[in-house]
């Protein structure tokens, strides 16, 4: 259902989902999903609550493995061309390259510095200069460096809600992932903090590839290059954002965008 036909010179999509079915135990949550995420683009997943958009997002870094009975029953998920369910895939390496930011900002009750350095530390980085550099780089990317550079060793819980969420973004990009998954990153934030994070996303897309789940359609319009609309576990339409919002091909998409679900 991809909108763009593959050109010869383009690199393979960074994330590709092929004919995927996904089940929680006996109940099927996703049906025959096909999706391509291009490098350095923001892809938004929209749809009503319970449509499976978060589940789809969590398939990409296999966070669903934590749920008992949750599994992909058909098809495959490729990240950088590699099937992530293949036996020789190391989850820690996969997740190092596919970062994630959650709905609820949840910094560890440690210092700002330790929060950002966490990912590198667990991957064995010990050099102080490397860590220092990564912390500065990540906080700069997350537009926090200027605000926080003088209190890197303050407790992260002392930050405001918006700052905490940007700190979580900094933490997620410290390991230099290829893909950054964001699961409704602004749903618990006030409009000004939301705006800051939306601005940030354009910047982030220059370095990383962003996939964002959002229930806010305006946000999808503002931040994304591509939008996928899911309904009841099926991918209804996937197209460049402008096209999907101005000229949806599917009746269901149109109804959802108009707010008139039958």
């Amino acid at each position: 259902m991809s909108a763009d036909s593959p050109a010869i010179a383009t690199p393979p999509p960074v994330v590709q989902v092929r004919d995927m079915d996904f089940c929680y135990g006996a109940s099927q949550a996703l049906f025959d999903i096909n999706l391509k995420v291009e490098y350095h683009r923001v892809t938004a997943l929209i749809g009503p609550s319970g449509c499976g958009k978060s589940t789809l997002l969590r398939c990409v870094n296999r966070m669903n493995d934590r749920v008992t009975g949750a599994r992909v029953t058909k098809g495959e998920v490729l990240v950088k061309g590699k099937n992530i369910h293949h036996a020789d895939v190391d989850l820690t390496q996969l997740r190092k390259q596919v970062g994630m930011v959650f709905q609820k900002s949840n910094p560890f009750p440690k210092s700002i510095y330790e929060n950002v350095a966490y990912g590198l530390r667990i991957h064995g980085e010990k050099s102080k200069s490397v860590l220092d550099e990564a912390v500065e780089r990540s906080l700069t990317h997350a537009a926090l460096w200027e605000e926080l550079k003088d209190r890197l060793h303050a407790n992260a819980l002392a930050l405001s809600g918006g700052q905490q969420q940007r700190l979580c973004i900094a933490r997620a990009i410290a390991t230099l992932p290829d893909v950054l998954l964001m699961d409704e990153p602004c749903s618990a934030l006030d409009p000004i903090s939301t705006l800051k994070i939306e601005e940030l996303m354009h910047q982030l897309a220059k370095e990383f590839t962003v996939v964002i789940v959002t229930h806010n359609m305006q946000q999808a319009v503002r931040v994304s290059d591509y939008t996928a609309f899911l309904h009841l576990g099926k991918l209804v339409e996937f197209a460049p954002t402008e096209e999907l919002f101005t000229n949806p091909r599917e009746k269901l998409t149109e109804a959802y965008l108009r707010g008139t679900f039958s």
Partner: protein
Amino acid sequence: MTPAPTTDNPFAGDNSGIQKRETAARWALRIGSHIVVFTTLAIMLHIFVKGAPVVFQSKWPFVNTQFLTKLPATLHVIEDKQGHRIETDVNGADAVKKKLGDDFRSEKTVSYSGGGILGPIVGTALLVVVSVGVALFLGVACAIYLSEYAKHGKFLETVRLAILNLAGVPSVVFGLFGLGAFVLTAPVFVDVPADRSVLAIPLGFTTLSFEGWDTCVLSGGFTLAFVILPVIITASEQCLQAVPQGFRETSMALGATRWQTIRYSVLPFATPGILTSSILGIARAAGETAPIMFTAALAFKDKLPWQKDMPPLPTDASIFAHWEQSVERFLGIFTESVQALPYHIYTIAAKIPQNEYSERAQYGSVFVFLVLVASLATSSILLRKRLRAKYRW
């Protein structure tokens, strides 16, 4: 019957049965709870009034150091012809009798009522150290497994049920378990296995013999560890569960393994709570009598665990030159049987003839015991309060 309203208050009470029952219920509940509070206070006050004078004194240093630093001993009460009574210990008795000469009328001995209670205090401390050490290790390991690794399902439910049941096992059964498992069959390394050894595995240089540890601190400590294990497991699991799931998700999303996640973003935030709850485990371990009766405690022992008949260390060298002997002596502490406070209280309260002289040691011991346990419980509560304020997310 509703009486006719005498005023024009439309909300006046009607003295109906409902109101009477309300009053009756309120008073019944109030009296019930007051009885509980009153009983507790009465016990505490009684022990304080009778026990505090034994432990404290009006002269410097205000604490009866003899009572806290001497081993229990037999009290000798010598009466002269004028009816004066002199209290002394076994060593002083002869001198007093010689001094009195013809004035001597009678001598009375009261077991365990002289001296102090250092032996029981030391024994209880050792038992608590061993049991809490063992229980924390096993309990936290079990709690981490149950909370972080085990899959939800029938097995987990069964294990939880088993732990709850363990908490309900009568303590004397734990005592018998300890007797069978640790005193009589636990494995030791010996050169020549004893006749009663259940199983002896020759290892060449030595033999692993399942002949038990005998009654000693180790046996008692392990037995007590199993008594407090359910408390520690349940509390630790609650503390682990109280750490937000988001920490685990984030950590794993950053590529941490399960153990890294536990090690760096779950345990550090659960540890204060686990330690706090384990203090309550200490109070429980210190208070149990039945589990140590068969496994560690003696009614009377005139030596502390480290006072053993051993060749003295050569005085010329530093202790490091003989570290092997030092280590052996240190470990030897744990293979001694000891006196313990709860068992000592049982002995002096129920096993010796009662008179005005035995009362002193009884109330003194109970008072010291109560203060120890109460201060442990209090420090646990204070610690928890402080940590709650510190870790809020």
